[in-house]
Each structure stands twice: as C-alpha cells, then as structure tokens.
C-alpha cells in the first residue's frame, strides 16, 4: 500500500482536509484585480511609437503608444480620463507580457 505523506491543509466549505497539492495547482497565479491606471503590455512585442509625454492630460480613448506584436501594430489607448504620471518604456524597446508601459493618475 502507498505511504501517505507530504500532506497539506486544504479548505473547502469551512472543512479542513488533509491532502496533497499537485504541481499545476501550486503553479497557479495569484489573481490581481484590474487597475485602470496601470497600462501594461497585453502581449510581448516592441514599442513603435509613443504619442504622449509625462504630465500630459489624456481622455478616455486617446492613443498612448503603439505596441507591435505578431506583425500587427496595436494602438494602446487610455481606458480613463487621466494624467500621464510616468512613461516607463522607450521607442524600439522590446517588452515582455504584462510589463509596465505607462502609469496614469487621476
């Protein structure tokens, strides 16, 4: 019979179960609520153009920059009316997925 060890505590409906945690479960990412003032890369790619400068006021729908990925130039637009707090990338910079591009403040 198999030895039963390496047990973790695992709660379902207020009951604490003793069980093993598998690899995929332990690899899962923590959920982060969406923050509209953080503009990050939705796909890895290259910054081709920056339309705005720090301190500039932008309206919802204004173009912020161009992120080229998969041979497609994507316009990244502001999701809110805000001021550009910081620009964290340069033109021709290669960015990874979820990398911070622009921070806004309201």
């Amino acid at each position, binding site marked *: 019979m*198999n030895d*039963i060890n390496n047990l973790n505590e695992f709660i*379902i*409906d207020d009951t604490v*179960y003793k069980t*093993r945690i*598998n690899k*995929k479960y332990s690899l899962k990412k923590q*959920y982060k609520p969406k923050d509209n003032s953080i503009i990050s890369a939705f796909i*890895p790619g290259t910054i081709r153009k920056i339309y705005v400068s720090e301190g500039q006021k932008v309206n919802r729908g204004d173009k912020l920059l161009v992120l080229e990925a998969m041979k497609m130039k994507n316009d990244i637009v502001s999701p809110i009316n805000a001021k550009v707090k910081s620009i964290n990338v340069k033109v021709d910079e290669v960015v990874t997925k979820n990398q911070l591009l622009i921070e806004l403040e309201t």
Partner: protein
Amino acid sequence: MSIFQSLVDLFKRKEKIEAGGGEKAVKKQIEMGKLTARQRIQSILDPNSFYEYDMFVEHKAEDFGMDKKFLPGDGVITGTGTIFGFPVCIFAQDFTVAGGSLGIAHARKITKIMDHAMKLGIPLIGINDSGGARIQEGVNSLAGYGEIFFRNTRASGVIPQISVILGPCAGGAVYSPALTDFVFVVDKISKMFITGPEVIKTVLGEEISMEELGGARVQAEISGNAHFFAESEQECFEQIKKLVTFIPWNNRKKADVFPPKPPKPDFDITKIIPAESTQPYDVRDIIRAICDDSDFFEIQEHFAANIVIGFCRFNGETVGIIGNQPLVLAGVLDVDSSDKAARFIRFCDAFNIPLLTLVDIPGYLPGIDQEHSGVIRHGAKVLYAYSEATVPKITVILRKAYGGGYIAMCSRHLGSDFVFAWPTAEIAVMGPEGAANIIFRQEIAEAQNPDEVRKQKVEEYKQKFANPYRAAANGYIDAVISPLETREFVLHSLLIAKNKKEDMPYKKHGIPPF
C-alpha cells in the same frame, strides 16, 4: 526475366526501401536514443506478424528539386499485424527519410491504412516522428493533414485510435493525435507543440526549451494531452500492448473476456479508509482491493490526479473506473479533472465498457482561477457524459458525497443503474462545518460561547445528515453495503446488467459543452 531473376530484383528493391534514409540517418536516429520506425513496429506487434502495405509508393512532387529525390516509402511505413493475436492497423513515420516530413503520398498511405482499419473494424495505431509538413510540396502537404484529421474524426467512437509520439510532432501534425483516444509519450523523446520555441522567441520574445514547452512530462502532467507516460520506448510499447487487451476491436464488439481472478490478499478493504472524513487515502488501493488480480491499469496518472481513471477487470470483463482521489486536492472536481473524467466516460460508453464510479468528493474546487477558466462549462461535461452513457453504470459511495459533487459522480439522478453506499457514506448538501455555519449562523453569532455552540451544531448536523440513510430513505441509493461486499455487489450488478439496452431519443448528435 526468369522467376529467379525477378525474385532477386524484388529483394533488391525491398532491401533498398527497408534501409530507410540510409546508414547515416539511421545512425543519427539511434544516437538520439530512438529506435527506427521498423524496429518500433516490430517491438509493438507479435513476432513476424507485420505485413507491410504500399512499400513502393513514391511521391510525384517536382518543385525545388524534389523530382530528383527518392524517398523510401515516402517516409512512412504502413501495414497490419497482431498484438497477442488481436488484429490492428499500424503506421510509423520514418524520421530517417526526409525527417519523416509529410507529403501527399505519405499522407495517402496513412489515410489508406485508416480506411482499411475502419472497413475491417480494428484499432489503428499511429507512431508519430516527423518534422512536420514537407514544405516543398506546399498546399498538398496541408491537404494530406486535413485528410488524416477528417478520418480521425469519422473513426472516433467506431474503432479505438492510439497515437504514439516518438519524436517531434509539431504544428498542424499535433491535431491527429489530439483527435485520437489515447496518446503515448516517452520522456526526452516526445515533443509536441503548435509553435516551437524558436517562433515563440522571435514573435513574443519568450524563451523556453523544447522540453519545458512540450516535452513528455509537460504533456502528461500539465496540458493533459498525453494519456500514458513512459521512461523508455520499450516501456511505452508494453503499455500499448496492455491497453489493447482491455478494449474491444470496434464499437460493435465487447472487449475480450479473460479468465476470472480474485483480488490479491494484500489489500484489506476495511483498513484503507480513515474514519475521519478529512483524512486522505489512496483510492487506487480500494480499486485494487476489489478488481481481478488487483490489476488496475491507470490512464492519465500524472494529470489532474484528483480524479483517477483507468481499466480493470471483474470476473475477466473490462470495466472503466472513475474514482475521486482524496489524496490529491482532497478529490475535488475542477476544470482538469472534469475534462479528464468526461472524456474517459465517453470512451467507455462508445466501446461498450461498463462504468464503475467510486465516490468520495467534497465538492467543486473553489477559486477565482477555476471560475475564470470555466469550471462551469468543464464541470458540465461530467454531467453530460454520465447522463448520456447507456452502458451499465454502477456507483459506490465510499465516504463524502457533498453537493454538486454528489450529483455529478454518477448519482441515481444521472441514470446510474446501481447505487450502493458504504455505512461510512456522508450524502449531504455540504460538509457539516459549512452547513452548520450557514444554518445556525444566527444562533452561533448570538451565543455567549460561539465556538462551543458551533462545535455542538456541527456534531448535531453530522449525526443527522452525515450518513447514507437519508438518501436511502428516499430511494436514491439501492443498498447500504459492507465494504467487504463491494466486489460481490459489483459482480452481481455486471451480471444483471449484461443485456442492458437503453435507447436515446432520436437526434443527429448531442451538443456536449466542449
């Protein structure tokens, strides 16, 4: 030409083709730790049982200097043979010939053997070891893939289809295995992906090795694309041979019946389950305690291990087992385990294999990632698969059967033919802690000593509801049985259900929540 000369000519022609891509390429294949396509076929089939078809097929491509290239067998070997006397159609891509690349002649050899398998009603085994489409043949090689996928789909549920990944299997090529019933991978040899590490790097800037992206371990543990993982090709071939003994030739037959064997005495069924329902045990020990020869052939052992699926025999007859595994993630249903169980249930139903479900489930896995990855539609697959299945369905509730998990795990309400419960069963809408906290919320909150009152209420709920008798009183379970009687009841149910025939309402096909 005399008959003697013509025979010499034939042997020379055969020898040239059997040499595959030539000495150098064969040497390279062996250096990679791989067997050749011919060795693989011979290792899987019974000795001297392989009969090759279409050895002399040649490609007709002319562009890019292809008109001057001779490719033995066009890079694939096809034919028929037997495994323990059981007939199969088989093909093996030959990586030593133009990297096993798929051109239209190569594809048509495969589709011909697939059509053959369908007509004869026998399983198909495909060994994949190919660099992908033969670029020089352009759209013709795409046509070849498409014709294979079409046949994989049409053959699905008619004949068992087995894919063996023994080398690269990339791009469009992965979809043939994905459409088949069982995928075998071997550590460090199998590589499967839609886009390889190089494309990912150029397009997305993400760096990853081939092994980490789509190696055997990833496919067997993370993606769930593979059903069987082996350390070596030889181990993989043994797995294939064993699988074949459990399944029928086609959907009009039943699996072969073997001589009955009692379970081995090493598994004492009364000692496996801890009394406390929050303590784990290995559900596979229960399976081994009740099935013939304690021989449980597990499928997708490393993927979504919170549910256990596989084949075993009862009095020699193949049975498909689905069991919650309290040892991993407390045995919850989640996206992956639902997907895994549902597909297996549908395989068994399509091939006349009775289902035995062992229930010990606290419910569905809570969590944002689960909800966002669609645990609703994936979980629905289990309900669909069980409700749709018309093979004999036997359910044994070992311990917890809470809430949605109770319904999903082949309850009476989903058409189970036989539902038994052990006296340790707890059939309730949820666990005692959760239920007491909801039902007696006010009482607990208003008490001077809330913890004590909670404890008392949990105990009260346990006494009243955490047992099989409420469900039994409603006729939702047929009998409360001693663990020691489990095998006897399963055997009796299989005997009684031998001629079960259940007609589905007329439909073209259902629309399962894929």
